[in-house]
């Protein structure tokens, strides 16, 4: 009896609706902001990342228009003006063959940037596809694919570059990119796989399954969009890595060959008489350092900005 008394319901008439009616139960206070705009708003708040972004814009602008601003062709030699210091005629000075360094630095920047961007892009695309397949199918497919990655990652890229330039009989930019990306995608593949595995186990994927959404749509609508921000951030962190690798390879003579040039090749040339003409080493090195730092700092800011759950 006591049980029944307690569960007895209070008649409906005794309740009065206070405040809001049905349908207008809850109202939004803050205006709606789209995903991209919200990310941009958060990115702008990060002053360091914003400055890095501006520096990058300037660098990109100069690599595109720099050689024509200088008024000299990058391979043009002037025997009357050899090893000159920075002046009004030659802003960054000239090298031992009398070539204008301002033109050469930005010409070299083109090569460095090209290798950095395409390298990161190619390895990201391959890594995404590879990691995505491994994560989506799981089980034995995943096991085999990840073991292959582990083997590839353990091969030092210097050996790959040397072997490739021997086998292909060329030291062109194409060979360089191929050599760098041949094992470079492995890191991205691992990252994408880990991220996808995490998303796959979330309940919204299960809900989509419940609704009868096809596998193809689940990958396109749920798995990929949720991985893309991680990939973008990885790309920005990878670019300086590729630029540095290229600089290093050119420095030791395995990279870009004369008359073409890059920041690494410029530094390598300047190193011979660096005690007498330190500015010849200073400018290309400064550009390498600035680009790498800017990309890294911007990547940091992007990572925070692209995560909608990190609200600031």
């Amino acid at each position, binding site marked *: 009896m006591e*049980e029944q008394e307690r*569960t007895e319901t209070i008649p409906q008439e005794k309740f009065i609706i206070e405040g809001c009616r*049905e*349908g*207008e*139960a*809850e*109202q*939004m206070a*803050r205006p*709606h902001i*789209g*995903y991209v705009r919200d990310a941009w708003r958060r990115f702008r708040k990060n002053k360091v990342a914003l400055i890095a972004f501006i520096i990058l814009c300037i660098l990109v602008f100069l690599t595109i228009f720099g050689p024509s601003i200088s008024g000299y062709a990058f391979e043009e030699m002037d025997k009357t003006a050899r090893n000159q210091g920075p002046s009004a005629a030659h802003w960054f000075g000239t090298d031992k063959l009398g070539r204008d360094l301002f033109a050469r630095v930005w010409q070299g920047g083109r090569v460095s940037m090209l290798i950095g961007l395409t390298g990161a892009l190619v390895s990201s695309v391959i890594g995404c596809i590879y990691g995505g397949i491994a994560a989506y199918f799981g089980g034995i497919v995943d096991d085999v694919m990840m073991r292959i990655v582990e083997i590839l990652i353990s091969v030092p890229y210097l050996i790959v570059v040397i072997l490739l330039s021997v086998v292909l009989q060329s030291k062109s930019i194409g060979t360089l990119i191929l050599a760098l990306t041949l094992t470079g995608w492995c890191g991205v593949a691992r990252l994408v796989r880990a991220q996808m595995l995490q998303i796959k186990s*979330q*309940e*919204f994927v*299960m*809900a*989509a*399954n*419940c*609704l*009868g*959404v*096809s596998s193809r749509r689940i990958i396109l*609508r*749920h798995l990929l*969009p*949720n991985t893309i921000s991680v990939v973008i951030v990885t790309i920005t962190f990878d670019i300086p890595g590729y630029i540095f690798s290229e600089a290093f390879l050119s420095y030791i003579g395995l990279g870009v060959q004369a008359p073409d040039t890059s920041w690494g090749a410029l530094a390598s040339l300047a190193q011979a008489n660096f005690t007498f003409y330190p500015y010849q080493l200073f400018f290309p090195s400064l550009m390498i350092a600035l680009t790498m730092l800017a990309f890294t700092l911007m990547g940091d800011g992007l990572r925070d900005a692209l995560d*909608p*759950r990190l*609200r600031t």
Partner: protein
Amino acid sequence: MADCLVEVRDLCKYFPVAGKKTLKAVDHVSFTIEKGQTLGIVGESGCGKTTCGRTLIGLYPKTSGEILFAGQDVTELAGKERLRFKKRAQMIFQDPYSSLDPRMTIAEIVAEGLQVHTNLSRKERQERAAEELLAVGLTRDYLNRFAHELSGGQRQRVGIARALAVEPEFIVCDEPISALDVSIQAQIVNLLIRLQKERGLTYLFISHDLSMVRHISDYVGIMYLGALVEYGTGAQVFSEALHPYTKALISAIPDPDPDSGHEEKKIRLSGEVPSPVDPPPGCRFAPRCAFACEACHAQMPAWEHAGEGRYVACHRWKEIKEKGV
């Protein structure tokens, strides 16, 4: 029963674990749910409630047994037939924070099922999504929002709207309230009850909250370590529990009256839940049961009929009932 919508017979779901062992998450579970009614499944964490619900809805393949939906075995369906079943049976998830895609707007989330099951245009889908949101108590301002802009209760409402959008007859509610505040829990449960009345929905309500299950359910099933131990109407189970485990569970519900002497009468179980990996023979509950005898340790109790619409799996339920312990 003529209007029985869901019938589960001897459903088993085993997972292989390392070392060639099997984890018996759901072990020979049988129950029926009549159209328009609610079956509440109660049990402690890890007893297989969620696995049971997910297997029922087809998210996990069953190991053995039958799942009949409107008289048709749905476990062997493929292609169009399977899609039709998915339209009729939906699920509401436990964690409102991971059950909504953070990259989709609320409109896209709610309309996702419509894209699969209907030929509506983008605009019509948006309209339908707005209608469903209104039905769960959210305005259309929310359509272009992202999940992270909403509170837990609002997200759970969106999850309900997503399930409702495809107009299902049967919804598995997998602990829909356990991640929410108590005040919000009541709102969500009342919303579910209202929707059930308006649309004639049938629920399988999974929870570990006995008071909520008692509030919403017509029938109640008590699970322990993968197996149902007792089944009956809410009134039957809560007023006169037959299984010792059910008795212990019910006595664990706190009593608001401090002078009722409830605290002293509480049945306190000793020991831990044994592992569901290769469980020993006999009654699963025997190691912790005050009434366990030799037979309990040796043999699995049968799923016995114990009066009008009641079932219990216990060797000694008759004795216990007579003694009135």
